[in-house]
């Protein structure tokens, strides 16, 4: 059978198979990549610690976020989704994770971060448990590929504490 339709079908099938194989290989190549990110997080100031009218505690922090994630980029990386989360334990919850700040990095050159920022999302507890509360700050980088697997790296920094009295 050497009709036009059969030939078109063969070319299409072959093309799709090659593309699929290349996508799989590109994704696999990511797992051989090792990176050495350099991360430092500091709480410069606790600007506000208050109880909201609904009874939940809220903190407003100024953070110093410095990170060098350039080594995370590979040829199959479309972007990094970088974020910092506060993680702490309370009587009610065995784990609270509150994202404070995030950034989309699309180019390797922009992956060196040095910023001073107020938290972008509310640091609000489920209850009033933030006074004197110890917490960790974790930086996560979610690697979003051009094609293939999505994966996440992280670094935990421990030993942060909120003040024991409300600021207002």
């Amino acid at each position: 059978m050497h009709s036009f339709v059969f030939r078109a079908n063969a070319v299409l099938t072959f093309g799709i198979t090659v593309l699929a194989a290349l996508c799989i290989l590109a994704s696999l190549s990511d797992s051989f990549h090792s990176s050495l990110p350099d991360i430092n997080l500091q709480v410069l100031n606790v600007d506000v610690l208050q109880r909201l009218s609904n009874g939940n505690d809220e903190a407003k922090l100024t953070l110093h976020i410095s990170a060098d994630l350039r080594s995370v980029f590979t040829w199959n990386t479309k972007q990094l989704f970088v974020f910092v989360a506060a993680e702490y334990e309370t009587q009610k919850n065995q784990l609270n994770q509150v994202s404070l700040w995030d950034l989309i990095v699309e180019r390797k050159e922009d992956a060196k971060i040095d910023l001073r920022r107020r938290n972008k999302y509310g640091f609000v507890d489920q209850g009033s448990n933030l006074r004197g509360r110890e917490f960790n700050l974790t930086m996560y980088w979610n690697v979003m590929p051009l094609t293939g697997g999505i994966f996440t790296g992280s670094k935990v920094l421990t030993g942060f504490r909120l003040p024991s009295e409300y600021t207002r």
Partner: protein
Amino acid sequence: MGFVAETLDSIRKTNVRQILLQAVSLGMIVTSALIIWKGLMCFTGSESPVVVVLSGSMEPGFKRGDILFLHMSKAPIRTGEIVVFHVDGREIPIVHRVIKVHERRNTGDVEVLTKGDNNAGDDRLLYAQGQMWLQRHHIMGRAVGFLPYVGWVTIIMTEKPYIKYILIGALGLLVITSKE
């Protein structure tokens, strides 16, 4: 006109045995597609193992027409994961990122808040009225893999049904007229 005459000729010439053979091979195609889909469901533990991104709320990471592969394991849900969830009263599931997690002591029940990377605010406006958090049962899976553009095929077919009918018709004609 040669092609049309040939086609009609081949339809006239087909006998019962050939028609039966074609029916069986068509059945094989349909059932193997079904097997792959159900097998994926079983393997990934998610009721829909593959979803097509329909909106731009996760740009530039995911664009309209991209495909996501989902996995639903027993592992707990954590911030930064991209989850697919459905909201009561909304038919189409949403693909967004988890930004807050509160996990209860003892029971391990979770309450999570999501947000689209490209949206200014969190998803409380998208949730059912008065709903503050998503629970485990709202979440259909988390995204583990990504393939660009392929989802356009299904988007075009749902939005322009006549293209679907033309395609199915053409394929059917091909199956009927092919001699092998």
